[in-house]
């Protein structure tokens, strides 16, 4: 891997971690949603780096587009219902940090000792292959997923429906 690529990858990683930390630590709820957007876009970059172009696109489209907008809507709505900005502070940090560090330490430790296979140059999997496997080998999960998405939509609507006065 050339020096440039390493620089690119670590830059992307930096953005991802900054985004994550921002989501988790920021005082303002909207800021934390925006930080999340940054993190998601940066991971899309990493997908590109890992030759998963289609996925990067999907990621940006779905996550950054769908989830962030939904979150913004939710924040606006609940702020209006609650009257006033939503307090976004966090408590019991010690406990949370402890568990997070423990998980990181444990998994990281295991990963560092493991000898992970290096990336071999394999044919790049492009959108057509993914589409073929969607309707070929994985057609059942694909259909089930569609059913699930419909159910989720209906569910979300029913849950959040305001009683007509």
């Amino acid at each position, binding site marked *: 891997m050339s020096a440039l690529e390493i620089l690119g990858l670590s830059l992307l990683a930096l953005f*991802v*971690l900054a985004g*994550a930390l921002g*989501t*988790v630590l920021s005082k303002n*709820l909207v800021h*934390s*949603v925006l930080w999340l957007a940054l*993190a*998601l876009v940066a*991971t899309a970059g*990493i997908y590109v*780096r*890992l*030759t*998963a172009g289609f*996925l990067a696109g*999907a*990621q940006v489209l779905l*996550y950054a587009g769908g*989830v962030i907008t*939904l*979150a913004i809507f*939710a*924040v606006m*709505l*609940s702020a209006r*219902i*609650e009257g006033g900005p939503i*307090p976004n*502070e*966090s*408590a019991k940090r010690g406990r*949370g940090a402890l568990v*997070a560090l423990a*998980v*990181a330490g444990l*998994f*990281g430790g295991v*990963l*560092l000792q493991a000898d*992970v*296979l*290096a*990336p*071999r140059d394999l*044919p790049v*999997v492009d959108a057509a292959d993914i589409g073929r*496997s969607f309707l070929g080998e994985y057609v059942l*999960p694909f259909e089930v*997923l569609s059913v*699930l*998405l419909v159910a*989720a939509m209906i*569910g*979300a*609507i029913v*849950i*959040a429906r*305001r009683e007509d006065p």
Partner: protein
Amino acid sequence: MNEIQFCLLLAVALFSIGIYGLLTRRNAIGILLSIELMANAVNINLVAFSRVHGGAAGQVFALFAIALTVAEVAIGLGLVILMARTRKSINVDEARDLHG
């Protein structure tokens, strides 16, 4: 320390930051966002290994995962709004009616 190992380590870091957010955020939306982070970390793993072993399976499942996470967030936010409407606050600490 090759590229894949780096991505996996990044995923672990992302995952633990997600856990931190999950455990410390007081409001429901904050928690949902942290869960997003953790789901994202999982996807990085999937893609990293699909890069190693090739084949479409890795990415297909990543896509499935993304779809599922989005569905989950949709429902989650619906609940948050319901909660906000009924309890006038989405602070998680106050919602403890199901205690022993």
